[in-house]
C-alpha cells in the first residue's frame, strides 16, 4: 500500500522539485537491487501490502506514511541506503517554501509538505486524507477553477492564477499529473502564494494613475480657465450691454444690444457649461476606472485629446508635435489605460528633456508588419498594427538602464520626482492589450518609445453607441454582490427596454423564486459571490425553474468547464469585465425572438 505512495514520491516529486538527479543517481540503483520483477510499476512493490493495494494511490488514513514505513525487510545495507535517501527526500520536500500536495485522483491529499501543513492545517490537525477543496475553498465539491480535469485530459502540467476567498489568498497554482502504467494516478499540486504581488500590482497601477492625473492637472486647469473665461466674459458682456448698465462708465461704444445678441451670449455660456460638464466627466471616468474596460476603440481621438491636455501641462519651452495619420483603424482597448500609457510616456519624455528645452513628438500610424519588423521586434506576430510613438530630444537612456527600464521599482528619478513605477505598469498594460512596447535610445540625442497595438479587422464597430444595441422588454434578474455593478447594469439594461430585478446576494436572488411573485425570463449572475457561487445559485434555481435561461459572468481565472455549466443550467458565459454590447447581444440570442427596436 505504501509502496504506491513511495512510487509517486519518487517518480514525481523528484522531477518536480529538481530531485531527478537524486533519484537517478542515488535512489534508483538501490531500488534496482530490491527489484524482483513482480510489478510493472517504476518502483517495484516491496511488501505484501503493495501487492494487495486496491489503488495505486490508496492512502492509509490511519497511519503516517513515514520513510520508516518503506524500509522493508531487505539486507541491512540496502535498507540503510534507502532510509538515508528517503530521509534526504523528505527533508528536501519539507524545505520547499511553497505548499506542495500530492493528491490522488479523487483529490484526496496523500501527502503535503511542511508549508502545506502550515497553510492548510486547522487547529494543528493533519491534512492527509482530506480533500484539497475542503481545505482551500471550504467546499465539499471540487473548486470550479480546478485544473485537474485539464491536466488529466492533456496529461501535462498546467499553471493558473487562482484566488481562494475562503483562505483569503491568491496563488499561482501548478498541477502536474502523476502517470504510472500509462494511467494518471494522481497529481502534484503546488500553490505559490502571490497575494502580495497581486496587491502590489494593484497599488502600482493606482500609483501610476495618480501620477498621470497629476500630469493631467495642468491641462485640466488650463481648459477650465478657458471655459470660465468664456462663461464670465459672456456674462459680463451681457451685463454691460443690457440697458440696466447704461449709466455705468465703460469703454464700449457699440449700439444697444439686440435680442439675437442676448441669445447668442446665453448660447455661448451654455456651450461653455457643456464643455465643463464633458471635462468633468472625462476626469471622473479616468479616476474612477479600476478595472480593465476593453472595448472596440477608435484610438485617434483619444490620442489627440490627451495631447491637447498635455500641451498645456508642459513648460512652454517643450514643444509637443502631434502627428496622427488619417483613418486609423480600431483597436480592442481600455480608453482610460490608453490615456495612462500616453500620459506616462509623455511625462517621462518631458522629464528627460534637460532645462525644459526640447521637442516631444507623438505619432500614431498603421503598419502591416513584415520580416523587417519581426526581426527587430521579437514578440511581434505578423499582422496589422496601430503604432503609437513617443519620441523626445532628451538626454537619452544609458544602455545599462535601458535593459532594466520595464522592471518594477526601477527608477532613475530622485525622491519627489515621481514613483518611478510608470514604465513597469505601462509594460503590463500594453501586454494585457496584446501589444508590444519597444524602446530605443541614444545618449545626448533622445529616446523613442514605440507601442504596437493589434488593429481590429475593418468590420469591427465601435462599442460606444448604446442606441445601436439590440433591445427587449423581458424581465431579467441581475445578481452581483457589488452594489455598484448591479446599479450600473440595471440602469443600462433598463435603457435597452428590459424590466430589471436587482439582487446583491444569491439569497436575495433565490427569494424572488421562492416567493414566486415575479415572472422572470432570464437570470444574469456573477460567479464569485460570498456564501454561494453563481454556479451553485444557477444549480438551485434550475432545480426550481428548469427552463429559465441563465447567463454566468465569470472572471478569467475562474475556469468553469462547459459540463459544469451545462449541468447548472448555464446557457452562456461572459468574461468579466462584461462588455455591454456582448451582453446585449447574448440576451437576444438566448431569449425567444420578439419585436424589438435596433
Amino acid at each position, binding site marked *: 500500500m505504501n509502496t504506491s505512495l513511495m512510487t509517486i514520491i519518487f517518480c514525481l516529486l523528484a522531477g518536480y522539485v529538481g530531485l531527478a538527479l537524486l533519484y537517478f543517481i542515488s535512489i534508483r540503483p538501490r531500488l534496482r537491487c530490491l527489484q524482483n520483477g513482480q510489478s510493472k510499476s517504476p518502483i517495484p512493490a516491496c511488501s505484501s501490502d503493495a501487492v494487495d493495494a486496491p489503488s495505486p494511490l490508496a492512502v492509509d488514513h490511519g497511519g503516517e506514511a513515514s520513510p520508516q514505513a518503506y524500509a522493508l525487510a531487505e539486507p541491512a545495507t540496502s535498507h540503510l541506503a534507502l532510509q538515508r535517501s528517503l530521509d534526504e527526500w523528505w527533508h528536501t520536500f519539507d524545505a520547499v517554501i511553497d505548499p506542495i500536495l500530492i493528491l490522488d485522483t479523487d483529490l484526496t491529499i496523500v501527502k503535503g509538505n511542511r508549508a502545506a501543513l502550515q497553510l492548510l492545517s486547522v487547529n494543528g490537525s493533519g491534512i492527509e486524507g482530506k480533500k484539497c477543496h475542503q481545505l482551500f475553498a471550504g467546499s465539499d465539491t471540487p473548486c470550479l477553477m480546478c485544473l485537474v480535469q485539464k491536466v488529466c485530459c492533456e496529461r501535462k502540467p498546467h499553471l493558473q492564477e487562482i484566488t481562494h476567498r475562503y483562505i483569503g489568498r491568491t496563488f499561482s497554482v501548478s498541477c502536474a499529473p502523476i502517470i504510472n502504467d500509462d494511467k494518471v494516478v494522481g497529481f502534484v499540486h503546488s500553490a505559490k502564494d502571490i497575494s502580495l504581488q497581486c496587491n502590489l500590482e494593484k497599488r502600482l497601477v493606482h500609483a501610476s494613475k495618480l501620477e498621470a492625473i497629476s500630469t493631467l492637472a495642468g491641462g485640466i486647469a488650463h481648459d477650465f480657465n478657458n471655459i470660465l473665461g*468664456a462663461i464670465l466674459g459672456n456674462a*459680463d458682456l451681457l451685463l454691460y450691454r443690457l440697458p440696466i448698465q447704461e449709466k455705468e462708465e465703460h469703454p464700449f461704444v457699440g449700439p444697444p444690444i439686440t435680442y439675437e445678441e442676448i441669445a447668442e451670449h446665453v448660447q455661448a455660456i451654455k456651450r461653455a457649461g457643456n464643455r465643463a460638464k464633458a471635462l468633468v466627466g472625462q476626469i471622473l471616468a479616468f479616476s474612477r476606472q479600476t478595472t480593465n474596460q476593453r472595448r472596440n476603440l477608435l484610438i485617434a481621438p483619444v490620442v489627440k485629446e490627451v495631447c491637447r491636455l498635455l500641451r498645456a501641462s508642459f513648460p512652454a519651452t517643450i514643444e509637443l508635435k502631434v502627428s496622427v495619420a488619417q483613418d486609423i483603424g480600431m483597436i480592442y482597448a481600455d480608453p482610460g489605460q490608453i490615456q495612462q500609457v500616453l500620459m506616462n510616456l509623455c511625462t517621462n519624455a518631458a522629464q528627460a528633456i534637460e532645462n525644459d528645452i526640447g521637442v516631444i513628438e507623438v505619432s500614431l500610424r498603421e503598419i502591416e508588419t513584415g520580416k523587417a519588423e519581426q526581426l527587430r521586434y521579437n514578440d511581434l506576430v505578423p499582422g496589422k498594427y496601430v503604432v503609437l510613438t513617443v519620441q523626445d530630444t532628451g538626454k537619452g537612456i544609458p544602455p545599462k538602464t535601458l535593459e532594466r527600464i520595464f522592471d518594477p521599482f526601477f527608477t532613475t528619478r530622485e525622491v519627489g520626482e515621481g514613483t518611478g513605477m510608470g514604465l513597469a505598469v505601462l509594460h503590463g498594460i500594453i501586454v494585457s492589450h496584446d501589444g508590444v512596447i519597444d524602446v530605443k535610445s541614444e545618449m545626448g540625442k533622445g529616446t523613442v518609445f514605440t507601442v504596437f497595438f493589434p488593429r481590429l479587422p475593418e468590420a469591427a464597430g465601435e462599442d460606444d453607441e448604446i442606441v445601436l444595441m439590440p433591445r427587449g422588454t423581458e424581465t431579467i434578474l441581475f445578481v452581483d454582490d457589488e452594489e455598484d455593478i448591479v446599479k450600473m447594469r440595471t440602469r443600462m439594461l433598463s435603457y435597452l427596454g428590459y424590466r430589471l430585478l436587482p439582487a446583491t446576494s444569491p439569497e436575495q436572488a433565490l427569494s424572488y423564486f421562492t416567493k414566486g411573485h415575479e415572472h422572470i425570463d432570464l437570470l444574469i449572475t456573477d460567479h464569485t459571490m460570498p456564501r454561494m457561487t453563481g454556479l451553485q445559485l444557477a444549480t438551485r434555481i434550475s432545480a426550481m425553474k428548469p427552463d429559465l435561461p441563465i447567463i454566468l459572468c465569470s472572471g478569467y481565472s475562474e475556469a468553469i468547464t462547459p459540463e459544469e455549466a451545462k449541468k447548472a443550467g448555464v446557457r452562456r458565459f461572459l468574461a468579466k469585465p462584461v462588455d455591454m454590447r456582448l451582453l446585449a447581444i447574448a440576451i437576444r440570442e438566448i431569449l425567444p425572438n420578439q419585436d424589438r427596436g435596433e
Partner: protein
Amino acid sequence: MRILIIDDDEQIRILLRQVMEWAGHEVIEAADGREGMHQQRKQEADLVITDLIMPEQEGLETITLLKREYPLIKIIAISGGGRIGPDAYLPAAQELGADRVFSKPFDVRELATTVKELLANG
C-alpha cells in the same frame, strides 16, 4: 483700430471678437502663433491679444517674433496657465515684450479699457 486675436480656443476668440467689435475695433483672428504671424504680415494689426499655450507655435515665440518684426506693436498676453500656473508664463511674456498680461478668466471691461489705453498711448 485693427486688433489681431490669437487663441486656439474658438469660444475665447468669439468672445474677444465681440468685446473688441463692441468697443469699436476691427478684428482679425488666428488659431495659433504661426497663423497669427501670417495674418499680421498680411493685414498688420495695431494691437495683438495672444494666448500663450497653443499648438504649432506658442505665444512666447509669437511675442518674440512680433516684437522683432514690429517693434512698436502693442501686445496683450492672456493665459489660462498650465502645469506651473499662469504666474509662470505671464511674467515670461512680459519679459519678452508683452505690454500687459491677463490671467484667464479675465474681466472683459478691464481688457477693453486696457486696449483703449494702450492704443491711446501708441
